[in-house]
């Protein structure tokens, strides 16, 4: 965060912008876009053990017009491609995309030479902000992905990264 020099708008309010970013980061409303197996881990993250509500993101909106972040959880197909692109275009700015799971990153286990139907990664269709590897990634990994997105938005991390050992 901070490598780009592009200002977010013509008129800059320094402290107000960082306050707005803090608000946006702490209340990311995801769109329910669970396609396949990763959707179940996303639901587990919304459950009470790996509570996503502590990060302000438990309000899964069915409509793209009311959501901030699209968590692409699952495999994208050639048949579904147009629908996904439409949903991404319908989300209002500022919007972010989290690619959850190996299928959304690169096609995952379906990126083989016989592949005739799977789009190899969500980033072939629209820009992705955070990639979460795993098949499926654990709920803790999804939470780490949300914290990485928050860091991307505000420039600061909610709490320090844990290093093993």
């Amino acid at each position: 965060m901070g490598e780009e020099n592009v200002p977010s708008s013509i008129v800059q309010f320094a402290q107000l912008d960082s306050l707005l970013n803090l608000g946006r980061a702490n209340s990311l409303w995801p769109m329910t876009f669970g396609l396949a197996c990763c959707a179940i881990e996303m639901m587990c993250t919304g459950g009470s053990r790996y509570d996503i509500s502590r990060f302000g993101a438990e309000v899964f909106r069915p409509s793209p017009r009311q959501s901030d972040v699209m968590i692409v959880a699952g495999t994208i197909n050639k048949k579904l491609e147009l629908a996904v692109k439409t949903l991404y275009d319908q989300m209002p700015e500022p919007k972010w995309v989290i690619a959850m799971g190996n299928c959304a990153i690169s096609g995952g286990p379906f990126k083989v030479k016989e592949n005739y139907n799977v789009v190899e990664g969500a980033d072939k269709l629209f820009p992705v902000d955070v990639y979460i590897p795993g098949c499926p990634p654990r709920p803790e990994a999804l939470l780490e992905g949300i914290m990485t997105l928050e860091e991307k938005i505000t420039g600061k991390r909610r709490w320090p990264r844990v290093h093993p050992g």
Partner: protein
Amino acid sequence: MTVPIHLRHDETFVLNLGPQHPATHGVLRVKLTMDGEYIVKAEPVLGYIHRMHEKLAEGGTFAQFMPNTARMDYLHALAFNHGWALVVEKAAGIEVPERAEYIRVITVELNRIASHLLWWAAFLLDLGGFTPLLYAFDDREKIIDLLERVTGSRLTYCYMRFGGVYNDIDDEFITGTRDFIKRLRGRMPRLYHDLVTHNIILIKRIKDIGIISPEQCRRYGATGPVARGSGINYDIRKNEPYSVYPEFDFDIPVFDEGDSMARYMVRMHEMEQSLRIIEQALDKLPDGPVMGKAPKVLKPEAGYYYSAVETARGSLGHRLVCDGGKNPYKLKLRSPTFSNLSLYGEVAEGMLLADALAFMGSLDLVIPEIDR
């Protein structure tokens, strides 16, 4: 003189349900032709998560297909593992030791309970109740912890091998499972039945909704709780027993009404029966190896093979055609929800939209299993 618009009843419009919708079944699209709030024609459109499993089976060896089996119905992945292991063991003539069979049954039944718990949570979420999801996921996390100790994964298990299972269970798993059985039996009457099953709102939403007759079940090939909720006593574990199921004493819940309430009660009772099976299996668990002798490169003799297992959604079939090589020549996966969903178009005619969604939830759909 023309009739004013608001008195005309022959105006229909097409409403598109999906492929992205808040019900957690996956990517299913249903083209609904509506007359006001009533459905005139419902046509499910599939293929939005078609991931070419049958082509991938032909492209790799028998063992390379095992991880794919879990990605189809990820909620009851161990049963899909089991079905694939069964058909290849039949074709190649591989023997499975007894301890491995018992471990297979214990883990498959635990997974069945987890699948039914998630169905229960998602069904009530469709009907508008959010709280049961939190209770069901709480119990489900306990099951997932137990299975993670033994298999290494939380959701998409690749635990079975041709000839047994690859990892033995330890004493902590056995004590943990017994504790879990006690815990779920204690929670069922209050949290699951008093709060939800006897709830007047649920009863009014799902009683007499989506009545499927036994003849319709036969014509469309519906199996599993959908058939057992219509009075058909068909469960592969009793009718075509495989593995060590004949050793256990359990009942098959069958309800005759054919409505969504009957299918709901079938699944709730099935959870209790699975607990009985697990208890008996833990009591009778023999010692011994968990992996039989299997050749490194499998080349079953040419022929046509079929295996059927009972998953949480119905009868899963693997139709395998071998030609003597090391890859399957053709694998057809007979998915239970594919047949269960095919009767949706006929039964949903004339229903209210909200009832049609309750009916769809009671069929327990997992779309990646339909699309394979």
